[in-house]
């Protein structure tokens, strides 16, 4: 530490720690409440004040959720859709971003900005036109159709993120590879992609989460119960007049597990990826 550990310095650190703890408590409270409610029987109405440790903890809610007709199926539908979306988005945006970062070609900027412009259109505005297109293409009630829409929707932002990262990589690497006789595809696959791993992980995680959480579009296009995804299945546990929140939260808790695993798995790359390219974008 550069500064002497004076009293005021220590006071400052304690304040920071206190603020961080407070932030962590605020951020964690809803999760903890969800987790505890998931183990409460018959939680139709949330208690006030809330209790975080259930009086009679039970696994009944999980049993009900898992034995309901479509929950497990929905879980695997979501997993398939999210993994496929994540793989497609990562592959396609990496190639696009590399091209935008390194090549000069006619119309580069107009194309780049029109892709970015897609980020500015609110999703809800597009839902009816999108529905009509999906219908013409026979993509209603179809999981591959869902993957296509999710992939298209995630392209702009992730491409933007990756372009910034590729631009931070030194050009000398490519130049020396070119001299050694490598073509652009080899450079991209063997040099750039391995170097861009932190940024690619970020894109993979973001696009996975996007597809895993998406609700309105999935609800609108999927009517076949066997094809419905997890957010739709969870919403169907809610009732018109009253809901068994224990059941809803047990299902939600199940849905959070893969995302937590994913985050832990990618964490070491992920945190680097968000800040990478921040200085030179």
């Amino acid at each position, binding site marked *: 530490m550069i500064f002497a550990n004076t009293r005021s310095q220590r006071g400052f650190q304690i304040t920071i720690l206190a603020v961080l703890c407070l932030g962590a408590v605020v951020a964690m409270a809803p999760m903890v409440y969800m987790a505890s409610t998931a183990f409460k029987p018959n939680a*139709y109405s949330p208690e006030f004040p809330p209790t975080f440790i259930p009086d009679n903890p039970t696994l009944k809610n999980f049993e009900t959720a898992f034995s309901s007709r479509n929950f497990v199926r929905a879980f695997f539908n979501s997993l398939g859709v999210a993994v496929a979306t994540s793989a497609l988005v990562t592959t396609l945006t990496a190639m696009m971003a590399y091209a935008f970062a390194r090549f000069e070609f006619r119309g580069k900027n107009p194309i780049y900005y029109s892709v970015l412009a897609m980020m500015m259109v609110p999703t809800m505005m597009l839902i009816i036109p999108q529905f009509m297109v999906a219908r013409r293409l026979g993509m209603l009630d179809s999981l591959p159709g869902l993957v296509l829409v999710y992939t298209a929707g995630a392209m702009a932002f992730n491409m933007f993120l990756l372009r910034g990262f590729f631009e931070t990589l030194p050009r000398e690497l490519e130049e020396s590879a070119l001299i050694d006789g490598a073509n652009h595809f080899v450079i991209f696959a063997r040099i750039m992609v391995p170097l861009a791993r932190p940024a690619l992980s970020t894109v993979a995680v973001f696009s996975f989460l996007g597809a895993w959480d998406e609700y309105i579009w999935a609800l609108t296009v999927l009517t076949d119960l066997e094809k419905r995804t997890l957010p739709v299945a969870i919403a169907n546990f809610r009732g018109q007049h009253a809901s068994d929140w224990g059941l809803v939260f047990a299902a939600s808790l199940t849905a959070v597990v893969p995302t937590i695993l994913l985050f832990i798995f990618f964490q070491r790359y992920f945190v680097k990826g968000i800040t990478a390219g921040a200085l030179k974008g």
Partner: protein
Amino acid sequence: MKRKLLIALLVVVLAIPLGVTSARQDTVTIEFWHTYNEVSPENEMLVETLIPMFEEANPGIKVESVPFPYDEFRQTMLTALAGGEGPDLARLDIIWSPEFAELGVLEALDEVMPDFQDYADRVFPGPLSTNSYDGHYYGLPLDTNTRILWWNAAMYEAAGIDGPPATIDELAAQCEAIKALGDDKYVFSDGGTYGWAVLPWVWSMGGDVTDPDITQASGYLNGKATVAAYEFLAEMVDNGCFSPSFLGGGLGTEGFFTDVFATVLEGPWWYPLAEAQYPDFEIHTSLMPAGDGGSISVVGGENIALFKGAETEAALAFLRFTQSDDYQLKMSEVGQLAVIPELIETDYFQNHPYYGTFLTQLETAKARTPHPRWTQMEEVLTEAGQLILRGEASAQEALDMAAEEIDALLAE
């Protein structure tokens, strides 16, 4: 090697969604969209008992039950219909029927169903009226309900009050004794200023949203009786007699079971829930407290409607089945009150522990304005209620403004 494995894995995952292909069928399949919660007894009754019963009696027709969450159902349906897709049959909240009829997506049952009148004559006239639009009927009632007064006997006893209020004045007079139990106790509570919550008070105090022909709100919504009803609610919230959750704070009826609210208005669906979550709680109900206009609660419930482009004959067969005594009685067992007055005479209803009060209340209960613009009208109403109950505008001012906006909606 690792890479090949990864690629193989990717290919497999990408192929999962392609795996399911639908088999060709000789039978006609109809889709029935509804909002029964997927693990509810209603859904179970429909899927496990009633649909199999129908399919057995009608070989060649298969009914596919498609549940949606209630909150997003209307919007999802509007999107699907705008895109040219939709169900064969749907269970619509009675407040949505006129809107869908106006969109031109529903079949007029009195035109496509030769025996429509026979069915129409059998059901409660109030719920039936919510299907009418522009001189035709676009559905039949499927289930009905209303809100009655639930009163917390333990709180009443502690406060030394004999029994539930028969009139609105009595309820107001009971406030003091209830408040004596503690600062956080309320004589009544509700969850917002939407029509479902506010209209029982407006109607019971002699007010209304529009004239009987639904042509204008001016003179009704901002009339003397309606203004007085809103002033009463504002005063009760202001002096702490009615809970602040009336403003939409979210703390709805649950405080009732934990001795915070002495009374609430609730529907029949609360019985099974109360029994499950608060098995020791003693349930007592009575009619909506009466005012100058009588004891008038709000009609809820659902209609069943037939969509254009449907497999009409097969869909009508199922629609007729939903009007049968079997279907109506079975659904009543899981909290979906029957719409056929004749059934009230059956042993099932006569011996039922709590349907009686609901049926009495239904005799006078009114439907929220059956009009295609109701959803927008209700937004205006909810906002005006907020302004009044928060004390940001006088009842007269806010309702004058609301009446003008609703007049404009009615003139469209």
